[in-house]
């Protein structure tokens, strides 16, 4: 059994172990999280033994899972009785994400995607209030539409090529059925990435879920979908890559304009910005032979930044940024600066890499759209900074204790800021 399958098995085993203690741990989110933590760490260790580019996918996914588990203790008001289930779903969702990222044929893609999607939907539904349940319902209905697209495309690919493997460029040119099938398969996977026109449910789900869990859903789905679509694009060639270039550009435009309008709703702004980042990943995917590895690097960098922001926001005090406390305010500020692409943060290195491959393979117009998206992102990402400054200066307010998840996510962002080559090595090799 390969290290990839060992990682999946360990994560599923971890989910089962956590679920065995549901009744004992339901009111103790810390214990549930720390029970599942070693499984995520060990699975991440197996990722280091996997050849590139899958090594980055497994390490990054397990890292996202670790941070989400470490944040769980402060989510108790949002998860009054379902902490154990949430921990199990985090592990199971990570296993599904790895399954999707490593998929080498269409059936594995379906299994991995649905394991991830169902875990993500349930995590969204576990948030407090009716909004989260409504958002989860919309997410699962729209997910069903994308699954229908994926399965219909799978059928067309099989009809056209006679195989369930990712179709090659030669097979695409031989049959219009195969082209139609690959486009539908790509769009089905693109739902996880939240590319336009399949982003609708993701926006409401990202907004309504509990902060740490929203960060996991956003990051893990993008990581897994980026690697799966990368394999699809590398097999199918430029004919499908062009589709993702233009879908990516439209997604960047949509997400940027939508985020600018969110003057008073930080969570909604972060959800729209996630759409913008999905657009960057989509643009990278279609940008030549170096595009898929760039998309994987971008997704990993995005995962670290998003988890930092959501780990900092987790907890009942997140409604008012001015009460975050100095350390959390610094962490959230670092995350926002990184998401805006300000050097030397990981967001800068990721955007630079996408711009380079887009210039080489996609031309001046997609590159210009990406540049504009990056520049305008500063407008909405730095809007909360005055409130974060107020949190730094607040005296006499109750200051929340810094949770380990914030520390781990901060370390990841700082390491990727000054040594992005670590992630490049995991995705591209020496």
């Amino acid at each position, binding site marked *: 059994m390969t290290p990839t399958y060992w990682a999946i098995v360990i994560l599923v085993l971890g989910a089962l172990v956590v679920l065995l203690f549901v009744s004992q741990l339901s009111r103790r989110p810390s214990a549930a999280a720390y029970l599942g933590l070693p499984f995520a760490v060990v699975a991440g260790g197996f990722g280091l033994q996997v050849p590139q580019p899958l090594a980055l996918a497994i390490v990054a996914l397990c890292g996202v899972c670790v941070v989400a588990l470490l944040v769980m203790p402060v989510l108790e008001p949002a998860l009054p009785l379902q902490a154990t289930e949430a921990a199990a779903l985090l592990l199971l969702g990570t296993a599904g994400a790895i399954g999707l990222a490593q998929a080498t044929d269409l059936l594995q893609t379906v299994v991995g995607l649905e394991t991830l999607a169902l875990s993500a939907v349930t995590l969204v539904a576990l948030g407090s209030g009716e909004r989260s349940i409504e958002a989860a*319902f*919309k997410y699962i*209905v*729209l997910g069903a*539409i*994308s699954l229908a*697209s994926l399965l219909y495309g799978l059928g067309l690919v099989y009809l056209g090529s006679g195989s369930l493997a990712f179709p090659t460029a030669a097979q695409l040119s031989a049959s*219009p059925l195969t*082209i*139609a099938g690959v*486009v*539908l398969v790509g*769009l089905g996977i693109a739902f996880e990435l939240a590319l*336009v*026109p*399949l982003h*609708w*449910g993701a*926006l*409401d789900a990202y907004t309504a879920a509990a902060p740490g869990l929203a960060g996991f859903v956003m990051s893990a789905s993008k990581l897994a979908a980026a690697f799966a679509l990368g394999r699809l694009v590398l097999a199918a060639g430029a*004919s499908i890559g062009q*589709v993702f270039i233009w*879908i990516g550009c439209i997604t960047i435009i*949509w997400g940027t*304009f*939508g*985020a*600018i*309008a*969110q003057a008073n709703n930080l969570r909604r702004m972060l959800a*729209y910005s996630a759409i913008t980042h999905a657009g960057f990943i989509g643009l990278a995917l279609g940008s030549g032979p*170096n595009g898929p590895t760039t998309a994987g690097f971008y997704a990993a960098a995005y995962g670290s930044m998003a988890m930092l922001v959501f780990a900092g926001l987790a907890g009942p005090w997140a409604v008012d940024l001015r009460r975050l406390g100095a350390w959390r305010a610094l962490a959230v500020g670092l995350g926002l600066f990184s998401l805006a692409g300000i050097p030397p943060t990981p967001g800068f290195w990721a955007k*630079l890499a996408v711009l*380079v491959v887009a*210039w*080489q393979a996609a031309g001046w117009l997609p590159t210009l759209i990406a540049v504009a998206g990056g520049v305008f992102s500063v407008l909405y990402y730095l809007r909360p900074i005055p409130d974060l400054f107020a949190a730094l200066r607040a005296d006499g307010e109750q200051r929340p204790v810094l949770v380990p998840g914030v520390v781990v996510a901060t370390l990841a962002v700082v390491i990727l800021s*000054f040594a*992005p*080559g670590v992630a490049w090595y995991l995705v591209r090799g020496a």
Partner: protein
Amino acid sequence: MNWSLVPLMVGSIVLGWIGLLWFPSLLPDALVGPVDLPPLLNLTGGLAFILGAIGFLAAVWYVLRPQTRLEPGETSYRADGWVHAIAGAGYAVSGAFSRAQSGLLPTYALGSLLGVAIILLVRVALR
């Protein structure tokens, strides 16, 4: 007009023109292959930092002068009319994009299906 950024702007334009004489020889593969990471401390970055720092220190001195102290609620930056017009147009477009996310599931489903159909038809038609 953000006057604190003027030194950086002037410096980048002037040094950019001067740099055209010798810069291309330093970046032969910038747009062809992978770009090497620059060192943490380098001359170009140092010059940019100094130019930016000059501008911002000048702005700090200007704002903190006794005769320019602001009343509470007053801002030091007042946008011109054309700036307001462009910003208003941008916010109008962004508001339209935001309102498209109405929260209605049938709208979302229709949008998804229409989008998939359009992308599929365009791609197959351009085969």
